[in-house]
């Protein structure tokens, strides 16, 4: 019944203008005709069918996953699979149905699901998401794993009774995913996080509060490209420097899918002509913020590790390139470097 009324009813008005991020979606949604929410009752299962089909018709990427995640979220679950048969076949309340329609309509504008439901999971944490703050990618979960393995070893080797203050610095914290994951897994860790975007700083602060980690996290609104000295003034040497810096090549920015292009902060993605602008800045700064034998961990583009190794060897004497690690798909994704004390040697 629903399918017929939709195909008959809707028409999409031509190309839409690109407005300021975040607000674009609601304007466009009103401009484009969207099916009204059903007057009679509809079950979650039926709603899933309806919206999956509609997403597909409108060329929305991952139509099935989009519908699944939105409906699941509305019913208080993380995924469709965790919803029991009973939840799926029960008729939704009027209020729920309207909420569902509103959320799915946002997705029609290609708003990423994470922004539509305003949250996403990262490792063991559930974090608030808000445009245009960068949405954490799965690869970054592995970056945290690498840092944790090293830091846990350090904790294990620390002398008994010695007050071993463990601190890490994150450059470009976005939603706070990396720092908050580290803090959550290591009770003795303190973290400092920076971002050039006030939105990111605000969101990280909110997430830290929600997770009760605000006491161990200091957050600063600093742009390492414009004001690297500010970073040096902040803190005494840290054990680890972590970053998922903007690493896309500028020319790649144009081929990004609408979800990213229209909604995520481009300055969180664009790394310059060779994607290394911010990375070079961070690595130049690294020896000044790291303690002796402290390590820097970066997530990068698969083309970068070779280039970074060569550049560091030529330009940053105090950093030793330790190794390149691969992500779950086998791509070279993570660079680990260590500060060496040049007075004493490698």
């Amino acid at each position, binding site marked *: 019944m629903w399918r017929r009324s939709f195909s008959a009813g809707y028409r999409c008005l031509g190309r839409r203008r690109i407005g300021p991020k975040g607000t674009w979606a609601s304007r466009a949604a009103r401009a484009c005709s969207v099916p009204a929410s059903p007057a009679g009752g509809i079950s979650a299962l039926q709603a899933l069918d309806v919206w999956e089909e509609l997403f597909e018709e409108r060329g929305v990427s991952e139509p099935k996953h989009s519908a699944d995640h939105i409906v699941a979220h509305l019913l208080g679950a993380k995924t469709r*699979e965790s919803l029991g048969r009973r939840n799926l076949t029960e008729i939704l309340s009027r209020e729920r149905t309207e909420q569902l329609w509103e959320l799915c309509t946002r997705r029609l504008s290609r708003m990423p699901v994470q922004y539509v439901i305003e949250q996403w999971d990262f490792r063991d944490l559930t974090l608030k998401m808000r445009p245009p703050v*960068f949405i954490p990618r799965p690869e970054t979960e592995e970056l945290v794993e690498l840092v944790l393995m090293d830091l846990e070893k350090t904790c294990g080797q620390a002398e008994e009774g010695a007050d071993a203050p463990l601190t890490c610095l994150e450059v470009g914290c976005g939603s706070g995913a990396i720092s908050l994951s580290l803090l959550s897994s290591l009770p003795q860790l303190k973290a400092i996080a920076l971002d050039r975007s006030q939105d990111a700083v605000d969101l990280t602060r909110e997430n830290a509060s929600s997770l009760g980690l605000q006491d161990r996290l200091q957050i600063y609104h600093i742009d390492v490209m414009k004001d690297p000295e500010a970073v040096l003034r902040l803190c005494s040497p840290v054990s680890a420097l972590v970053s998922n810096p903007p690493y896309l090549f500028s020319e790649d920015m144009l081929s990004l899918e609408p979800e990213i292009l229209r909604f995520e902060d481009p300055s969180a993605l664009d790394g310059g002509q060779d994607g290394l602008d911010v990375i070079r800045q961070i690595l130049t700064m690294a020896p000044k913020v790291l303690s002796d034998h402290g390590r820097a961990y970066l997530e990068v583009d698969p083309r970068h590790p070779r280039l970074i190794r060569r550049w560091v060897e030529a330009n940053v004497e105090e950093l030793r390139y330790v190794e390149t690690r691969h992500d779950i798909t086998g791509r070279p994704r993570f660079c680990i470097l260590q500060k060496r004390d040049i007075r004493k040697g490698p």
Partner: protein
Amino acid sequence: MSAPFNNMVIPPRLLSVDELFGHRSLRDYLKKVETEYSDCLRALNRGAVEEEVEEQPSCSEDELRAKRSKVSQLAPLVQSIRELEAKSQELAETEVLLKDEDPALRELAELERDGCLQDIQDLRQKVLDQLIPEEEADLSDLILEVTAGVGGQEAMLFTDEVFDMYHGFAQHHGWSFDVLEHVTSEIGGLRHASASISGPQSYKRMKFEAGVHRVQRVPKTEKQSRMHTSTMTVAVLPQPTEISFTINPKDLRIDTMRASGAGGQHVNTTDSAVRIVHLPTGVVAECQQERSQLKNKEKAMKALRAKLYGMKLEEETSKRYNQRKVQIGTRGRSEKIRTYNFAQDRITDHRISMTVHDVRGFLLGEELLDEMNCSLQEFSNQETLMELLGDNDQDQEAS
């Protein structure tokens, strides 16, 4: 109609505790246990004395270690046997008093006798429980796997209902039920699914649910009201600990959505499904239950480990369980263990020929399923006991 599910013409019967204790082979066995225990103790004491006076030991160090282990293993059972003997003695003494002239004394004796009889029942049950050796896997958690069998959509709908039933069963027992895989069909129903269940006695109980379950009913889509028979299979795999079973990461291929394209910052997807293939065996596990890719990977690994461990166990235990009726293991996988007949509103477990009514109630996974499951346990225990006693009889005849 298919062939009978077991070779016995007479349906099996659960013997009562008294009947079991009436068997001479049981009494013989208990005596044997006591004798073995005393012999071991004597040997250990002799060993201690020999050491003190620095005599040549009559038993090697290894033999002594084995005896020590035997003693601690048998101690609880021997304790119960002795308590039972003491109570039986007490009962005999009380029964003498029943014939006493004094009515007050007779009354007291009657009360005491009732108490004694109850204690003897309890102790006998305790002895029986202690006689059944605990399987190593009984202490572990499990992975539950359901797969739709013959019957098209009907089979898949039934698989969905059975999966839900075990979800209810887990909740009924306070176990955790963590869905790892869940593959539905476009036309409705569940193709296959798996869940990690953990909690006390979870594997011990759930192991009896493994096998082929059959449903007989008129499907919703059936226009001519014909009865259909469909099947689904339940597999129960004990969940191994990290130490007891390791997998080489080099043997694994991990597939994700991120594999295509550049990945990383280039792409934002919400498809975090992970699929792991164990290259040497071709065994596959996948998970898309979570939004975090890392968590999906962890769950898929968990499912994979259980599958591989299950395969390893099957090799080891298939010989042991060949003779039994209440099958647990390889043969149990393809054996039809239970029929759910909606028209007649009954569920029959074929291993113990037990029938209960109220299919809807049964599918909730609460008391009705629990009762049947307990009966299965009791039968299985009895079979183990008979095997134990049978082996003992054979040994005795041989010697």
